[in-house]
């Protein structure tokens, strides 16, 4: 017995010590990794080829361009460029780069890297789908894209830390374009390394670096300890590719992922009352609208008719009931999350009585006298549901439209060719500026002006906005243009997009940016 007591005394001390150390470890260590599920594979991690939401979200944290976007407001803030100067005529931008910022291979990022990267993105062999969309304003971009030359005339490295960019035309908003990953610097020696694939093994300068990429499976990012800016809160971020939304939600509930991006309506409904999961609704920079082809009757010279149809659409019901909260009612053309949004731009609300009166004034009382109308839409996403709702709303005021669902690529070809009279379409912002909606869609000489809308006052306001350096005056010009467009009614704005995300209660700071990204460097997890 005495010996047993002695043994117990000997053993108890180390166990007590173990317990003390274990207790000291418990309760004070925060989880240092975050994982989230995406329903599709990034087409590429090469920023020159990033043209879809999954790859863009990852690339925005693998790479840093000249500027970054604020995660809450979407406003431009300094990135690799500490500051920049703009010429009075808004055609020459001089960027002053910060010194000492490095790629994850250790080499310092210099002005020449931007010249190389932008040129490479434009060259035909790269086959970038976004290069011309973003870099078109740069002088000499078109000849590089054509393959006629291999030097980008408008991008010049004055010295290692000064980049001078000359544009083809005035564009005061040009800096907002530069947050897109296609404008990121890439190290030439890594891109051209024999035997390696930069699309699968990118080397960047962002707050994260790539640890592992298993195609169709997952992307694992490690915090970049050499990043020049604020260190990411998480040591590791894993992006899991789970194409089935039901499986992704099941993994979230099982604790195998911390968040699911893009939860479809069917899954959202079941999660609303589930305390093990939190839901987040994030407004994104997209607009679903009905467009009128102004080269066709009865829309040509038919402002009262087009305004009448605007009054007939019940936007809140479409957003809340038809789209089950995956959208919010549009109150203009510029989404709520974008600079330049104005709350009182939209002169129309849901008012069938007023709509009928205007229809009468237009000479089509009760819908009589209208030619056969066809509402075309692409057989994808929310478009079929929106089209059906619009058909029902118009029928209430006596305007009968036949629905025509068209395969996606054919729909785009027909719309751009001007073959569709009335169509439902969604437009997503390429950069965080009202210019991407207003100038691209409504300037009379733009190829994507699918309405064939031409109003000299609108053109003048848009050109004025592009050449105005003062931000307040610039935004005012864009806002005036928006109001003019809404009055002329070449479209019926219906809803702004809203992403539904689900995340674990363990996530203590969940940040979803106005550009539709999870802010990977700001996420924090609760302590265990």
């Amino acid at each position, binding site marked *: 017995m005495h010996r047993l007591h002695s043994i117990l005394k000997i053993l108890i001390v180390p166990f007590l010590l173990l317990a003390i150390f274990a207790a000291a470890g418990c309760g004070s260590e925060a989880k240092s990794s975050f994982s989230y599920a995406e329903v599709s594979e990034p087409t590429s991690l090469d920023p020159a080829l990033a043209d879809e939401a999954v790859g863009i979200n990852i690339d925005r944290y693998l790479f840093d361009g000249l500027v970054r976007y604020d995660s809450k407001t979407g406003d431009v803030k300094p990135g690799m460029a500490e500051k920049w100067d703009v010429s009075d005529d808004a055609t020459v931008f001089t960027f002053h780069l910060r010194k000492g910022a490095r790629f994850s291979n250790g080499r310092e990022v210099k002005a020449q890297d931007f010249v190389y990267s932008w040129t490479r993105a434009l060259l035909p062999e790269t086959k970038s789908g976004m290069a011309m969309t973003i870099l078109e304003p740069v002088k000499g971009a078109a000849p590089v894209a054509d393959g006629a030359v291999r030097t980008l005339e408008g991008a010049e490295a004055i010295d290692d830390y000064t980049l001078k960019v000359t544009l083809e035309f005035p564009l005061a908003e040009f800096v907002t374009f530069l947050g897109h990953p296609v404008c990121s610097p890439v190290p030439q020696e890594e891109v051209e390394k024999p035997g390696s694939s930069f699309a699968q093994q990118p080397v960047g300068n962002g707050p994260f670096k790539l640890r592992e990429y298993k195609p169709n*499976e997952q992307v694992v990012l490690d915090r970049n300890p050499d990043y020049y800016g604020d260190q990411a809160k998480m040591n590791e971020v894993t992006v899991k590719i789970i194409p089935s939304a039901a499986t992704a939600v099941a993994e979230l509930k099982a604790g195998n992922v911390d968040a699911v991006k893009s939860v479809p309506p069917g899954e959202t409904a079941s999660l609303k009352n589930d305390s093990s999961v939190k839901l987040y609704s994030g407004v994104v920079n997209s607009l679903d609208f009905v467009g009128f082809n102004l080269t066709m009757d009865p829309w040509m010279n038919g402002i009262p008719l087009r305004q009448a149809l605007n009054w007939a659409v019940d936007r809140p019901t479409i957003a809340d009931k038809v789209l089950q909260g995956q959208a919010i009612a549009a109150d203009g053309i510029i989404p709520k999350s974008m600079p330049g949004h104005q709350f009182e731009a939209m002169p129309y609300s849901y008012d069938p009585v007023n709509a009928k009166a205007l229809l009468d004034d237009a000479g089509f009382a009760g819908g009589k006298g209208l030619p056969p109308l066809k509402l075309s839409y692409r057989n994808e996403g929310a478009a079929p549901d929106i089209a059906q709702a619009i058909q029902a709303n118009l029928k209430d005021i006596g305007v009968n439209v036949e629905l025509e669902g068209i395969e996606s690529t054919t729909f785009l070809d027909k719309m751009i060719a001007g073959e569709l009279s009335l169509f439902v379409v969604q437009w997503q912002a390429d950069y965080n500026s009202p210019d991407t909606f207003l100038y691209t869609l409504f300037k009379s000489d733009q190829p994507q002006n699918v309405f064939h809308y031409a109003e000299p006052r609108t053109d003048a306001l848009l050109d004025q906005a592009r050449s105005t350096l003062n931000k307040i005056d610039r935004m005012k010009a864009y806002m005036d243009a928006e109001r003019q467009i809404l009055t002329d009614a070449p479209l019926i704005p219906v809803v702004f997009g809203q992403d539904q995300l689900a995340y674990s209660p363990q996530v203590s700071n969940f940040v979803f940016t106005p550009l539709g990204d999870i802010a990977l460097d700001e996420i924090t997890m609760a302590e265990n």
Partner: protein
Amino acid sequence: MPISRFIFNRLLQLLAVILGTVTVLFIVLYLLVPGDAAQAMLGAKATPQALENLRHELGLDRSLPVQYGLYLWRLLHFDLGTSYELNRSVSSVILDYLPATAYLAGAALLLETLAGMAWGFLTAGRRSTRLDFLTTISGSLLLSTPVFFLGMVLQYIFGSRLGILPISGLGGYNPVYLILPATTLAAAQAVIVGTMARSSLELQMARPYFLAARARGLTHRQALVGHGTRNALGPVVTLLAIDLGALMGGAMITEIVFSWPGIGRMTYYAAQVRDVPLIIGSVVVLVAIFVTISTLVDIMYGWLDPRVRLGAISDG
């Protein structure tokens, strides 16, 4: 017919099937899939010259017969073209995903073999018994349950509720991740293998040699295992060999439900984004695998049983 001529005929058939597959796919996809691939790749603001250059590079500015001929010429050199969406060679993309599908198909084949043979042994010669009734009911249930639904039910039970098995991903080839997707893929096929095994065993059980073995004092099980099984395996092995090819191509839905990074899921993605070279390449590879396995089985059978290559009817 000499075996060499038999093999030659089968190889010709193999080539004909692959050629036919490529031809049908090419016509259907290039004629019926609308839209301009170059415009889709370069975006709405691409210059006309850039679009023209890319169309020329991809051969899209040539007539359909010329495009078809060029595709066949490249196919002879095992060049399946370049993926529009991923901007990589189709061959390299397929090689990335094929191993995962082969791994899953192999596991499913093993499962359905074990389960099917056990099913056959247990039920052979036991018609109109309670066991027969139970296995018939459960077999019908498994055969009529859609694969995706079975997969989701297994995920819910073993993943969400019990939390004992992972429900998605490859898990770095950890076998635990294989259990649910392989079971989902093998379930219906196990019933078919079991039914075939049972019929084949019962056929052997009616043979004189079997009755003689029983008369010599062997138990039913001893006679079945020691004598009947070997003779009964022929049709079952043929079915399993062909099924391997079918599993490789038929795992798409299972791969989507379980986020398995295989070629089926990749083909689904290619169809979603209308990546024509990737669609044709992956379907051609899967058809080639299936037809090659079938041909090898044919050749093996013809070598083993001269009656097959002579075209005589085999009574098993």
